[in-house]
């Protein structure tokens, strides 16, 4: 007989949500108050009331950017894991981010004067195609070996990234690859991060399809049996993942592990039913990334360590712990 588990009452979700909101509010205040320029929160707010100053120009945008990037990447990771039916995938490790970068490099070479909008479009499209390619690849893997899926994704991403790097090298665009692939927020100012709002809105739009994603996650046969248009749902989900990834890559750079660690932690406590879980995934994603950014800002003050690097280090350990401490399956 399987291990007796306590019934999953809603209070787990409520307690978890409340405590994370409390932590998040503290982090937001900390994030607003630390920086190289010495000033007090009171001064910041009084300046902001006049519509100017450090708060509106830099600190608030930076805080919002971390929250938006973290939340939408975590949601993208959750959706990707649901659709691929594998817990060990996320946009950064299965080639989606690399495909976005490849698309962006491509458009920078072919149309150097292209506006941000057309770049975004090409980047998102490339990420979408990359994700479709990955899905076609993993369909051929034996279902009994779930760990082959992320391994295959890493190879796949490596191949795409090497093409992107080669093109960048040949065309003297290497600095872009560095910026796109290493997420950090020190360059975020008012007017330079607003694309992330679009990313957040897209992630929010994903919530409207939460039930469909969960059903698709039950497998093609079960989903079709329930009358779901399976391939349409997959395409829609991948489009959301692709856009969130591409928007993040171009604005602040990719933050690996967010889409992997956060959904795994949340799922462990409250399960996989997207409708119930997605808000919490977004909340935890934003909180973790903001926390990483704050750590990166204070550890070597006044210098900075990229949030992506901090998250990578902490995230790896958290993920290893999750992997090893996972209760044995019935």
């Amino acid at each position: 007989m399987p291990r007796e588990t306590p019934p999953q009452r809603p209070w787990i979700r409520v307690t978890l949500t409340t405590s994370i909101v409390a932590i998040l509010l503290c982090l937001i205040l900390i994030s607003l108050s630390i920086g190289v320029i010495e000033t007090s929160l009171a001064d910041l707010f009084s300046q902001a009331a006049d519509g100017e100053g450090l708060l509106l120009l830099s600190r608030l945008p930076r805080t919002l950017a971390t929250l938006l990037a973290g939340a939408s990447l975590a949601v993208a990771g959750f959706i990707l894991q649901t659709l691929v039916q594998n817990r060990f995938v996320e946009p950064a490790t299965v080639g989606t981010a690399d495909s976005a970068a490849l698309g962006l490099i491509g458009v920078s070479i072919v149309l150097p004067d292209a506006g941000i909008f057309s770049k975004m479009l090409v980047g998102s499209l490339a990420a979408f195609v990359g994700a479709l390619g990955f899905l076609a690849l993993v369909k051929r893997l034996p279902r009994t070996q779930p760990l082959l899926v992320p391994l295959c994704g890493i190879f796949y991403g490596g191949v795409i990234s090497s093409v992107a790097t080669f093109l960048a090298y040949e065309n003297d665009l290497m600095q872009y690859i560095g910026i796109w692939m290493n997420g950090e927020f020190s360059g975020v100012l008012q007017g330079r991060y607003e694309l992330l709002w679009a990313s957040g809105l897209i992630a929010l739009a994903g919530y409207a399809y939460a039930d469909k994603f969960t059903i698709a996650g039950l497998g093609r046969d079960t989903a079709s049996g329930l009358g779901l248009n399976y391939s349409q749902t997959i395409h829609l989900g991948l489009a959301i993942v692709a856009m969130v990834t591409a928007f993040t890559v171009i604005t602040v750079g990719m933050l690996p592990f967010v889409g992997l660690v956060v959904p795994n932690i949340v799922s462990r406590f409250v399960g996989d039913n997207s409708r119930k879980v997605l808000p919490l995934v977004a909340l935890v994603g934003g909180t973790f990334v903001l926390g990483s950014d704050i750590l990166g800002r204070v550890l070597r003050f006044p210098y900075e360590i990229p949030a992506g690097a901090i998250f990578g280090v902490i995230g790896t350990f958290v993920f290893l712990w999750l992997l090893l401490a996972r209760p044995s399956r019935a």
Partner: protein
Amino acid sequence: MIDIQNVTYHHGRSLILDDVSLRLKKGGITALVGPNGAGKSTLFALMARLLPLQSGSIRFDEMEVGKTGTQSLARKLAILRQEANVASRITVRDLVGFGRFPHHQGRASEADEAFVQKSLHEFDLASIADRFIDELSGGQRQRALVAMAFAQDTDYLLLDEPLNNLDMYFARSLMQQLRALADAYGKTIVIVLHEINYASGHADEIIALKQGRVALQAPPESFMTAENLFAIYGMDVQVETFGNRKIALHQV
């Protein structure tokens, strides 16, 4: 009525189904039996539009598979596949609740909730309704999947080896429940079985497939003879009558 006409199916070069034509009357339980590799699951997948038809046609009453929208079909027939391995961490209640999806497309009404509750009770799942399905035993998960198909509340129920993983107690009670569903609600249940005695004991009609062809379609009384079983399975089996049931003694 399920009307299957001239269905032929190839997988690569090998012939899986060879010109199968069947007519199943509405209401009651039909058992589909046959040796491994006879094409039972393929026929099932074709009926449930999980595989595209290569030739022939399949109709459920007025709805023709392949020409009817997948959503309408989901309200006409529910299917439980043999290898329905669900990896998601969702609760039994949520899983069974998704059975109502074809009816509400994401906005569950109180009637839907009530039906879910009824399904949970019907299949003895109320006490584990809030457990995650990845923490259940194989048999409990199987019952949850059958309950989901039941919650779909369709005229037709296609179950591919639903007795997998079930112990004697639950196997028999599931068959009895299906019998009750067929009798009380006039549902048409098609069920793939390996254990011929469950077919004999609970079905109204048994269909045997062999090498992609229909070998026999008959009520249990005339189906269960040593000659028929030899023709289908290629083994000598003693058939005995107990009460009004015929039982094949194939285990010994």
